[in-house]
């Protein structure tokens, strides 16, 4: 499987020093910040832009996620944004002119109880009404899609069936980030690493620039794409948000021969599994219960996750664990993102993607770029503005977003 991974040239972007002023400053050089920069240039012709990243490009959640891409969310609002995202993924390799190893190998979301079965079927029907390729599979059919899945009735949480989205899949997260970075850079956008934003300058209710570890920078507009750190940044402008930051852990096995042809997720037992192109089994857990900014979580969480994985995939029993890690995910009360304007003029917000924002990377960037360029939410992201926490029009995706993915 190793030769499936293409080699990269030595440098894909310049490494410029920050200039003193930009039309748009994007805070956070993860997938969303880089995609936003790219679409600002490509769709709106805005190129006097800097992306400020406190570490190295895409070293946050973008480097740490389990890369599952799917659009089988329950509500119309979410179906739209995630399905539009999936459509962008389907053309992204050509658009970026860069390999991203997008592999539409399908996803099974398992049901383990009667309540799961009902809720899963409801989601399948809702997905179909929204033109999304969703199917309900009985246990034996699920085992045909994924032969190593244990569907025997004797397990502690037997598999009673699964939803199946054939167009779902995985991509290589680093390459996705590098593809966006390379194209943004080629438009003349400055990608500035090792540059932490430590303050936001707000005058008369309007943001005018940022203070950074590499000096102050004035900005026409400031756009936050800082995932787990968004609350800290918003606090610099006096804003508090309906966001809580939690550790989310994942792990990989050593490299193995191909055994796992698809993606399997189980909200009930908190594990999701695929096999990466190089051959490692990639497994994600549920979030740790407490707030955490430490990029690590508690051991008992992955212990339980492994117990669940072993029951679903007895064949993994002798696989060896290679690495575990955590990211910092920005969760919201309704498990849906926040994209839009803020009470501070010229300060824009893209956050709250929590455990599931990798799949949204292209469309989130697209909608956020539109919002920044026009000063108005994009129609696809309009249901996801901050206002919903006043109006009560929540988009509750706890069922489809589950604990994680």
């Amino acid at each position, binding site marked *: 499987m190793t030769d499936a991974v293409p080699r990269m040239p030595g440098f894909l972007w310049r490494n410029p020093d920050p200039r003193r002023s930009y039309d748009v400053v994007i805070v956070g050089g993860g997938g969303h910040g880089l995609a936003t920069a790219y679409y600002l240039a490509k769709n709106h012709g805005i190129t006097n832009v800097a992306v400020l990243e406190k570490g190295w490009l895409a070293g946050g959640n973008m480097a740490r996620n389990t890369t599952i891409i799917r659009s089988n969310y329950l509500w119309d609002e979410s179906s739209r944004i995630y399905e539009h995202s999936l459509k962008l993924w389907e053309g992204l390799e050509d658009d970026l002119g860069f390999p991203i190893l997008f592999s539409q190998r399908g996803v099974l979301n398992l049901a383990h109880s009667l309540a799961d079965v009902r809720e899963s079927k409801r989601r399948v029907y809702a997905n179909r009404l929204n033109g999304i390729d969703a199917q309900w599979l009985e246990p034996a059919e699920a085992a045909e899609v994924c032969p190593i899945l244990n569907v025997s009735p004797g397990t502690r949480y037997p598999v009673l069936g699964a939803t199946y989205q054939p167009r779902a899949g995985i991509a290589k997260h680093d390459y996705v980030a590098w593809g966006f970075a390379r194209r943004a850079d080629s438009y003349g956008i400055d990608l500035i690493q090792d540059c932490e934003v430590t303050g936001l300058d707000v005058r008369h209710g309007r943001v005018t620039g940022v203070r950074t570890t590499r000096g102050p920078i004035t900005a026409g507009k400031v756009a936050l794409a800082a995932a787990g*750190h968004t*609350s*800290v940044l918003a*606090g610099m402008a006096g804003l*508090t*948000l*309906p*966001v*809580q*930051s939690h550790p989310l852990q994942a792990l990989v096995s050593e490299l193995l021969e191909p055994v796992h042809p698809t993606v399997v997720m189980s909200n009930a037992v908190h594990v999701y599994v695929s096999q990466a192109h190089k051959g490692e089994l990639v497994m994600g857990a549920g979030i740790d*219960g*407490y*707030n*955490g*900014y*430490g990029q*690590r979580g*508690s*051991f*008992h969480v992955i212990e339980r996750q492994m117990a669940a994985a072993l029951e679903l995939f007895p064949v993994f029993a002798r696989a060896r664990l290679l690495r575990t890690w955590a990211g910092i995910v920005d969760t919201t*009360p309704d498990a849906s993102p926040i994209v839009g304007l803020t009470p501070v003029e010229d300060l824009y917000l893209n956050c709250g993607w929590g455990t599931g924002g990798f799949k949204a990377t292209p469309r989130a960037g697209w909608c956020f770029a539109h919002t920044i360029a026009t000063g108005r939410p994009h129609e696809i992201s309009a249901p996801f503005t901050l206002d919903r*926490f*006043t*109006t*009560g029009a929540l988009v509750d995706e706890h069922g489809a977003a589950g604990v994680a993915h």
Partner: protein
Amino acid sequence: MQLLTCPWCGDREEAEFRYGGQAGVPYPADPRALSDAEWGRYLFVRDNPAGPFAERWVHSAGCRRWFTAVRDTVTHEFLREAP
């Protein structure tokens, strides 16, 4: 496994506890007097600092009592526990 100190039971494994989020969020004295935005803030907005955070924990698999602890959300170190 991380040990948490229950003020009543002493040091116990983290898995015995559940998290209750920010401490000291009072129910509004007169909910009907709040605007929609204020009510929304009460329902949905909590502090989310990187650093010391006063939060509620419950010893759910032990004495089942709640307590407040100050914990550093960056190091995960418990700084102070109190009933």
